[in-house]
């Protein structure tokens, strides 16, 4: 299966990158842009064919490595490949 994972900062956690991008966009003349937040996006293939099993595996990967759960949330999408 293919897993698509979004890792985003939790609400309230400072996002210096997002802030810098927001400033840069406005300096480039893009007005009305707000609340820019930067996260990570990961794609991977996993040998599992059962969706529920795959989800459990990927969640485990997120908890253990892919996300820093102290400050980040993650969101998993799965697709048979």
């Amino acid at each position, binding site marked *: 299966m293919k897993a698509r994972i979004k890792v985003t900062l939790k609400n309230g956690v400072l996002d*210096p*990158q997002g802030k*810098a*991008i927001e400033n*840069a966009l406005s*300096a*480039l003349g893009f007005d009305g842009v707000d609340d820019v937040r*930067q996260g990570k996006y990961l794609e991977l293939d996993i040998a599992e064919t059962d969706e529920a099993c795959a989800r459990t595996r990927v969640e485990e990967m997120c908890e253990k490595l892919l996300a820093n759960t102290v400050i980040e949330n993650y969101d998993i999408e799965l697709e048979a490949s």
Partner: protein
Amino acid sequence: MKSHVIVFPGSNCDRDVAVALENAMGHPPGMVWHGDTEVPETDLIVLPGGFSYGDYLRCGAIAAQSPIMRDVVKKANAGTPVLGICNGFQMLTETGLLPGVLMQNASLRYICKDVHLKVERTDTCFTHKYSTADILRIPIAHHEGNYYAGDDVLDRLEGENRVAFRYCSADGADGKNLPFEGANPNGAARDIAGIYNEAGTVLGMMPHPERLADPELGGTDGTAMFDALAEALQ
């Protein structure tokens, strides 16, 4: 010779390179703020190392969009020599003045240490005081110095003799397959540490020549680059 160093918020090697330039030229370079729209008349533009805009988004990406860079690109295309060191090299690729990109080091770690370099070409204003037999020792300090470009681009760079420096071991052997860390510190394609534009007037390099241009700092292999510029551009 008049030279100018562009200062971005987050630049942090601007003073270091200004000192090296002053030592070579006998007078200090002009410092130009990123918010200005024009670089004063000049014989050399330097884009210094550091973390412009925090290196947020992509290294050099936000700096490449700053007002002053439009003029830098214009002057570079008109033939004014431009030296981009480290973060400056990243800016040069982001503006398209140089091809390719600098990706994260293969180790995914920031690396600060002396590396050895082979000088590939000695007919430019930057390197005419070196010889191709020289093995330079110059420090690197970066997290994104892993030069990447497609094979077609790499072939063209090599075919047009546009590779400026390559990582090598202290005895000049090529950068791969050495025991211990290997001489290629970051995984750069074909051991590339620096490249030129087509005209040989724009140089982007990851190593910091300004950091070993003073005997007190433990080496002077960087000095010849600044001396070369002072001589060629007077």
